């Protein structure tokens, strides 16, 4: 059973650089073209199901904008994104 995860992008920090989008192995991240942040950027957001909570997006995000959660079930496994 694939791990289930969630990411929350903090729009104070996100600048829509798409680095997380490119890095996401599940291709579930994209930019929210429907709105802009206070700084004028389209922020990143989950655009599909399938996030495993691997945390790679948070490893590459230059703005430390992403918080990554994983369903408790997966807690015992070492996070791939942990450093």
């Amino acid at each position: 059973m694939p791990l289930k995860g969630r990411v929350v992008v903090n729009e104070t920090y996100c600048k829509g650089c798409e680095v997380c989008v490119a890095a996401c192995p599940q291709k579930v991240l994209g930019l929210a073209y429907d709105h802009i942040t206070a700084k004028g950027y389209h922020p990143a957001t989950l655009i599909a199901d399938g996030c495993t909570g691997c945390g790679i997006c948070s490893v590459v995000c230059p703005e430390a904008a992403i918080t990554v959660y994983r369903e408790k079930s997966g807690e015992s496994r070492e996070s791939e994104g942990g450093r």
Partner: protein
Amino acid sequence: MQTEIVVAGFGGQGVLFTGQLLAYAGMDEGREVTWIPSYGPEMRGGTANCTVVISNEEIGSPMVEHPTAVIVMNRPSLDKYESMVKPGGVLVINESMVDRPAERKDIKVISVKANEIAEKLGDKRMTNMVLLGALIANLPVLPLEAIEKALKGHLPERHHKLLPQNYQALREGEKYKVN
């Protein structure tokens, strides 16, 4: 006769180029002009603005407390500049990026959903031209043709294919003439 115009917005919105275009057009029309920019710490994003002065005689200060006209391309710029416009002056607002109406009653306010218009014309980057068209329509400083000539004369050769679109953006803006 001296006219001072401020263009303000995010970096990347074409703020500085819009001002330069006014300056070129003014110069080509034989007027005295100055263009002066100011920007924040950000290389990309952040705020940027410039002041253009167009005059019939040697220009003193290139900056003024109370410009004749202001184009604001985002909300922070509206907050900063609204109060500064000279009474009776012109304020052009990019409604697409500004979520409140202007408060001043003693100036001419023109609100244009410029992003939408530009996107409809096929290129978001022409937002500034729409707003410039709206300004020119409401400020008797230069004819629109002068802007078009300047655009042709000073847009880098490789962008000349975009000229018709830009002209159209200006014309779309021009429609926002307010009396």
